[in-house]
Every structure is written in structure tokens, then in C-alpha cells.
């Protein structure tokens, strides 16, 4: 029983990482109605920028917020410059573009900063909480920041005009134009916000998994898993989904034979498939009702 509880706790700790990523993913999904496969790379690049600033002597929190601003601008620009030309193209072309972005950003990061792993500082300290070293102050801090972002996003989308305009622009761009919403700006805003959230995710994850160009690949996957399990229309669900994925991954790794590190990833994914077959819109997603 004790082992079980320990593993749950450890799972919540890793789940915090996935939850953070899942939040960024749901954010972009709400803005542009598809999943951005380059999201993880953008987050990784942002983290490198922060690292570089810190290397140049900039204090942590200053670097943090400057990186946020730069990431926001970067996301905004990517939408306006790279995505806008194909705004009317079919989804498959968009996905191919995301893949291209992934390749470009990953390669650039490797070229500029090389592939040796680097350490990234944490503002929360690494001393363990609850004894035995299963959850550190950083892990708890990460969950705290994720929840704070979640609350901010909820309030933003539910109660502000821009939030409503963004939701409308994503749901039905043509109708949104007909009420005077500048859809292009809304899309770009969504990208900017997603990039900023991704940057936060990256800067919180890097202290744990160490900074290198390929650090986000599997995390992105777990993030997708969490987002889908929780429901792509629900930011809260994404966070819970991310934590759930962390817990289940850990429990599966501990208690099921043969599932060593090899299959941990597959378990997470088997989870996605299972949840999707049983409840296609995710645990907390709002299913869309269409009257034919």
C-alpha cells in the first residue's frame, strides 16, 4: 500500500510536466482548431533562449519574463508570416507545415546550442517534500504554476471580450468576420499565447529532464495524451489528464511485468486509444451536438 501511494505521488510529480504541456496544447487547439506538432520544439527553443539569457548574466526572473514576451512575439509572427499564406489550404497541408516547422526549429536549436545536455535552474529549489525524494519543491512549484495558468486561462476565455472573440474566430471564422472580429489577429494572438505557455512549460520541465534539443519529443507525446484524455475542449481536463497520465504511467511501470522503460510510452498511448474509443471527446470534453 505504501509503495502504491509513493508511486502515485511520484506520478503526480511527473504528471505535472505533462499537464503543463497539455495546457499549451489545448490552448493552441482552442485557437486554431488543430494540434500543432511543432509546439514542443517551440517550447524547447524558448527554453534555450532563457538559458542563453541566464548565461549572459541576466537574473532568473528577468530572463523568465523576457523569454515569455519573446515567445509570445515569436508565436504571433509565425502565424502571421508562415501560417497565413496557407490559411485556406486543407488541413493536411497545415499538418505538413507543422512538421516542417518542427524540423526547422529542432535543427536550428541543435545548430546554435549543440546537443550536449545543459542544466537549467529552478526558482523553487530542489529539496524534497514529504520526505523520501518522490516529490521535490520544484515538482510542487510546477503544479502550482500550471494550476495558476489554468485559472488565468479559464477567466480569460470565459469572462473577457477578447477571449470570446478568440473562441468565435476559432469556431467559425466566417461568422466571426460577420460580427466584425479581425480573425487574423485572433489567430495570431492564439499562437502567441500558446507559445508563451509552451515557454513556461519548457522552463519548468528543463530542470527535471535537462536541456537539449530533443528533450520535448516524448514530453509532447505525453502532453497530447493528457490533453486528449482530459478532452481537447477543456483546459481543466487537460491538466487533470496530464496528471492522470503521469500517475498511470508510473503505476504501470511499477506493477505490470515487462513494462519497463520500454513500454511506458506505449502505455500512455494505449490509454489515449482506450479513452477515445470509450468516450471520444475525452473525460471532460464537451461533446458537440449537431442537428442534421
Amino acid at each position, binding site marked *: 500500500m505504501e509503495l502504491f501511494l509513493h508511486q502515485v505521488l511520484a506520478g503526480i510529480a511527473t504528471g505535472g510536466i505533462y499537464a503543463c504541456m497539455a495546457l499549451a496544447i489545448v490552448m493552441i487547439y482552442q485557437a486554431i482548431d488543430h*494540434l500543432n506538432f511543432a509546439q514542443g520544439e517551440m517550447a524547447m527553443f524558448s527554453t534555450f533562449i532563457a538559458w542563453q539569457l541566464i548565461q549572459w548574466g541576466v537574473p532568473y526572473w528577468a530572463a523568465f519574463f523576457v523569454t515569455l514576451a519573446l515567445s509570445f512575439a515569436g508565436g504571433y509572427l509565425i502565424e502571421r508570416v508562415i501560417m497565413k499564406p496557407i490559411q485556406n*489550404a486543407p488541413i493536411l497541408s497545415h499538418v505538413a507545415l507543422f512538421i516542417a516547422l518542427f*524540423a526547422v526549429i529542432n*535543427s536550428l536549436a541543435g545548430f546554435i546550442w549543440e546537443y550536449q545536455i545543459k542544466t537549467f535552474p529552478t526558482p523553487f529549489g530542489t529539496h524534497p517534500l514529504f520526505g523520501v525524494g518522490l516529490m521535490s519543491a520544484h515538482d510542487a512549484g510546477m503544479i502550482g504554476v500550471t494550476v495558476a495558468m489554468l485559472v488565468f486561462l479559464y477567466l480569460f476565455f470565459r469572462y473577457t471580450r477578447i477571449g470570446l472573440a478568440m473562441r468565435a474566430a476559432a469556431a467559425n471564422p466566417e461568422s466571426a468576420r460577420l460580427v466584425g472580429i479581425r480573425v487574423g489577429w485572433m489567430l495570431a494572438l492564439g499562437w502567441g499565447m500558446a507559445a508563451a505557455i509552451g515557454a513556461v512549460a519548457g522552463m519548468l520541465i528543463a530542470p527535471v529532464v535537462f536541456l537539449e534539443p530533443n528533450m520535448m519529443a516524448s514530453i509532447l507525446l505525453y502532453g497530447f495524451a493528457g490533453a486528449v484524455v482530459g478532452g481537447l475542449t477543456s483546459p481543466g481536463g487537460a491538466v487533470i489528464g496530464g496528471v492522470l497520465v503521469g500517475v498511470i504511467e508510473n503505476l504501470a511501470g511499477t506493477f505490470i511485468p515487462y513494462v519497463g522503460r520500454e513500454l511506458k*510510452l506505449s502505455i500512455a498511448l494505449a490509454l489515449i486509444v482506450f479513452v*477515445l474509443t470509450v468516450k471520444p471527446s475525452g473525460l471532460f470534453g464537451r461533446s458537440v451536438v449537431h442537428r442534421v
Partner: protein
Amino acid sequence: MKQALLASLTSARAPYGRWLGFALVLLIALPLPFLVKNFFVFQLTLAMVYAIAILGLNLLTGFNGQFSLGHSAFYAIGAYTAAILMDQYGVAYYWTLPIAGVVCFVAGFLFGLPALRLEGVYLALATFALAVAMPQILKLSPLEPWTGGVQGIVIIKPNAPFGLRLNPDQWLYYFTLAVALVLFFCAYNLVASRTGRAMKAIRDNPIAANAMGVNLSLCKSLTFGVSAFYTGVAGALGGIVVQFVAPDSFTFGLSVALFVGLVVGGVGSIAGALFGAWFVLFVPNIAEHVSKGLAGAVYGIMLILLIYLMPSGFAGLLRLVLVRFASASRR
């Protein structure tokens, strides 16, 4: 006379244009192995293999509208089936193709069943899961006696039969060419048939298709199966051509490559698969030549440019050029 020719090339229905296309391809393809170096023959063969795999993906995604990022898994199953049959059971290489195809058909059909409930993004994720899981499953210890674990299986390249004066690379080239021609021909027929129309109807408007009597579940699962069949046969061929199968050859990166090949070649175009295969096989090499450190970035930029300039892929561009040419000569 010229106008009729051009009209037939650009018309989707007239078979003459297609036969002409086939003939042209054959004319260029047949003498090639004697004109170029062996390594290039190997690459051309691999291009045809990828073309078959991309065609499989096209049947599912381009013609039936089911988004798959998991085709590397079917490619892997096909490759391993062939490898295990040849290595452990001494089966002749030509028999491994249909067997691999059938195994993948069943796998695809079975995967297609639960996938029926998933749409768009969700289906993409589920297939993504499949693609990522496959290398890990192949590395599993209990399966090692068959799969050879991380080290994989080595295959011996077959010699030309009937004492033909061809080296193994050249023979494989012609063998692959024959298989590719047959499969492409079948694909054209499938797409033009009633089943093909049902497939496309499901892609364009599933509710209407259902209302007109198309059995959605059956058609979609069957399409998944056929698509997996094609990619599985490609995998088997690929394994024989490369002489080696190992788990890390079949990662998600392969699925991405197939997908990129699909978009670049032209979604919904059978001929496009060949263009897509060329892009996927040769452009990464070109990118590395341009800049070793920034190879990925160069590749990505080329892909972005292609998507901007050719939204319907190479095939779409070709069609546009032919149509313009046809209407210009009509005046």
C-alpha cells in the same frame, strides 16, 4: 489529334491518358538499371517501395478521409513478416509479399474497427500512438526469438532467377517495378470502381453516403485493411531491398516521411505517390549536402516552400500544366 491526346491526359475518366502515362513510365524505367550505377539502382528501387507505401496511405487518407500517422507500423509489420519468414522458415522471397500483405490487411482491418469511432484529430493521435508503440513492441524481450530484438534480422538478397544476366540489385529493381505496376494498376481500378466511389463519398460527406446506403463501418474498415495491405507489401519489399530489419528503422519518423510524401505528391492522386517518394528519399540527402549542421532546417524550408507553391502537390501542378497547355493549344 493532339487535342484529343491532351484531353485524354487531363481527363480523370478517359483511360487512354492513363495507358499513355504507364507506357511513358515504362519507357523510361526499363532501361535505367543498365545506364546508371548500382547504388543509384538501389535508390530507385527504394523510391518505388516508398511509392507503394505512400499509395497505401493515400488510399486511406486521400481517398477515404481517414487521417493516419501510423503507417510506419504497417510497414514494419510487413518488413518483419518477410524477414521472419525468410530467415526462420526459409520461405522464398516472392511468397513473403502476399503473406505480408494479408497479415497487414488483417492488422489494418482490426485497427480500423475501433478507429471507426474516432474522427480527424483523435484518429491522428490514435495512429500516432500505434506508430510510436511499434518499435518498442518490436524490442520486447519475450518476442526476441522471432524479432531478433534490438539487433533485428539480416536478410540475404535474392539472385536473379532463370539464370538471367542481372546482378541482384538490378533483378530487385525489375521485380519491384513489376509489383509496383500491378499494385498501381489495381489502385486505379479500385478508385474508379463502385467501392472507390463509396470511399470518396465517405470522405466528402459521410452522412450523405450513409443515407445512400453505403455501409460506413464496413467500407472504412476495409479501406484501412487495403491501405495496410499496400504499405505492408511495401514494407516487405523494403526489407528485402535493404537486406535488414531492425526496430529503430520503423519509428514515427517513417510515418512522418510517408505523410510528407503524401502531401508533396498530391493527396488523392495515385500518380502523385511516385513524386512524393522521390521527395522523401532524395531531398533529405540534398539538404545534408547543402549544410551538414542545418540539414533539418533546409529540409523544413524546402517543404514549406513546396506547400506554398504547390498546394495540391506535384500531381496537382502537373495537372495544372497539362490543362493550361491543352487550353492554350485549343485557341
